[in-house]
């Protein structure tokens, strides 16, 4: 793993032109996340319908290319997915970033896995792992509707 693999075209593209950036109309779940070490901030919004499916999802925030790209790729991925699927994929992603070499969830298509694996470059940069995972933890908090702000320095994440 080297720098080129961390800053791949897809990361730079999502980092510079994040998808789903901004608030959404009529969201019914949201949560904020903060990484005080880097100053990364993220606010995730989602509209969960009565069938527990994510109808719409977006984020607002500022931060490094990795954190922005991660939030952008994440929101792209989850639009239209069901809550249970989303939770499984979040766990799979976080485990992959922490220790597992690959993603294993059956809920992910191959092209989705390829996209997410672009973020695995941070594994070589332990100080940057939190940049990649902040929006994912924040999404979990939003889904659970537990009204707590994620702070990477307070959580064991």
């Amino acid at each position, binding site marked *: 793993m080297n*720098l080129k693999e961390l800053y791949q075209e897809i990361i730079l593209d999502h980092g510079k032109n994040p998808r789903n950036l901004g608030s959404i109309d009529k969201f019914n779940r949201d949560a904020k996340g903060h990484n005080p070490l880097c100053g990364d901030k993220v606010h995730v919004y989602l509209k969960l319908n009565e069938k527990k499916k994510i109808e719409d999802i977006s984020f607002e925030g500022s931060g490094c290319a990795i954190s922005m790209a991660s939030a952008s790729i994440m929101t792209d991925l989850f639009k239209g997915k069901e809550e249970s699927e989303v939770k499984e994929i979040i766990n799979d992603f976080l485990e992959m970033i922490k220790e597992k070499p690959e993603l294993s969830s059956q809920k992910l298509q191959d092209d989705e896995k390829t996209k997410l694996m672009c973020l695995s470059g941070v594994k070589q940069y332990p100080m940057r792992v939190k940049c990649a995972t902040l929006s994912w933890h924040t999404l979990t908090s939003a889904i659970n509707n537990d009204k707590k702000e994620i702070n990477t320095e307070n959580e064991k994440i």
Partner: protein
Amino acid sequence: MNIDNIKSQFPIFNNKVQNNDLVYLDSANSSQKPQVVIDRIYDFYTKEFSNVGRSVHYLAVAATNLYENTRVSVQKYLNAKDKHEIVFTKGATEAINLVANTFGQKYLKEGDEVLITELEHHSNYVPWHYLRKLKGIKIEFAEINNDGEITLESLEKKITPKTKIIAVTHISNVTGAILPIKEITELAHSKNIPVLVDGCQGAPHLKLDMQDLDCDFYAISCHKMYGPTGLGILYAKKKWLEELPPYQGGGGMISEVKKEGISYGDLPNKYEAGTMATAQVIAFNESIKFLEKIGIKNIVSHEKKLMDYGLEILKKNNSVKIIGNPRNKGSVISFTIEGVHPHDIATILDEDGVAIRAGHHCCQILHEKLGLAATARASLGVYNVKSDIDQLNDSINKCKKIFDLK
């Protein structure tokens, strides 16, 4: 000693870091160690080790003498009046905590004010914050100007009859602003207010003269002065060390201990409870000798030349923005690149062996004021050379290329 060859005295530069020559631009965070300091630690543990100040055997006496020799060297280096004004601590953070705790205990009450500045490192804010919680004191912040400086006037504005102590940094670890300490102490003393100086960035880079600065307290971080980690120094005027209560209790700091009461030891033992960082103290004497051998005048002019060169080069670089423009500036260059987050900058520079720091540098108050979540910072040490700055600039250009910037 030729200052341009100083790098050769630091063995870390003999090794490649991830296949690159190390370009170390993080000395404001911590400095590298010269061979003489490393050798001294090795020799002490190998041939001379004993605890100090307790036993009467040969090694204990010899170690005690070595330990006290460093105190005298530091006293001379700082031009302190008395060697008992030098207290060893585990770091500058502990030195400031010692003062905040003991001064706060004895002299501060609800409504009293501690005056600090927006430039302060968290270690010169958080210890005072404890007193805010504990005693209901207030903390006032002198404000920076547009150049990232603290002027005498901005401090004076915040002094009130309730100001009980002023605690300021000597040099900002972000903007590099050098504060007019002598003028500040003159002003403060005219109002009977003592002054604490956080000397972490000052001590490695400036000529120090405690009697001339006339501050009441000066905190030093030894690992930023080419010395070992785990060691700091509190300089304090003798009258304060005599008046203030002890900080930590334990062995070594007592005179007599009985069930019904305890009396404390004389200076400096009163503030050095427990087994101290013996090897580090003894090795720090080598750091002082090393600095004296090069000469602080030479260090100042070497670092100034390099910093001016760095500023000149980086100012010419499109999209690089230098943070702060103080007239008197220490060897710290904080910057941002429009469109690239500082952590991305630091990671990309790291691949070329360029070690800088990115983040808020323990100065969240200042970053909030500047409206920045983070900055990148290149800071200089005595071992840096012109080519380090060139490499910094080349790597910044690489960074811009990755992010498609011109």
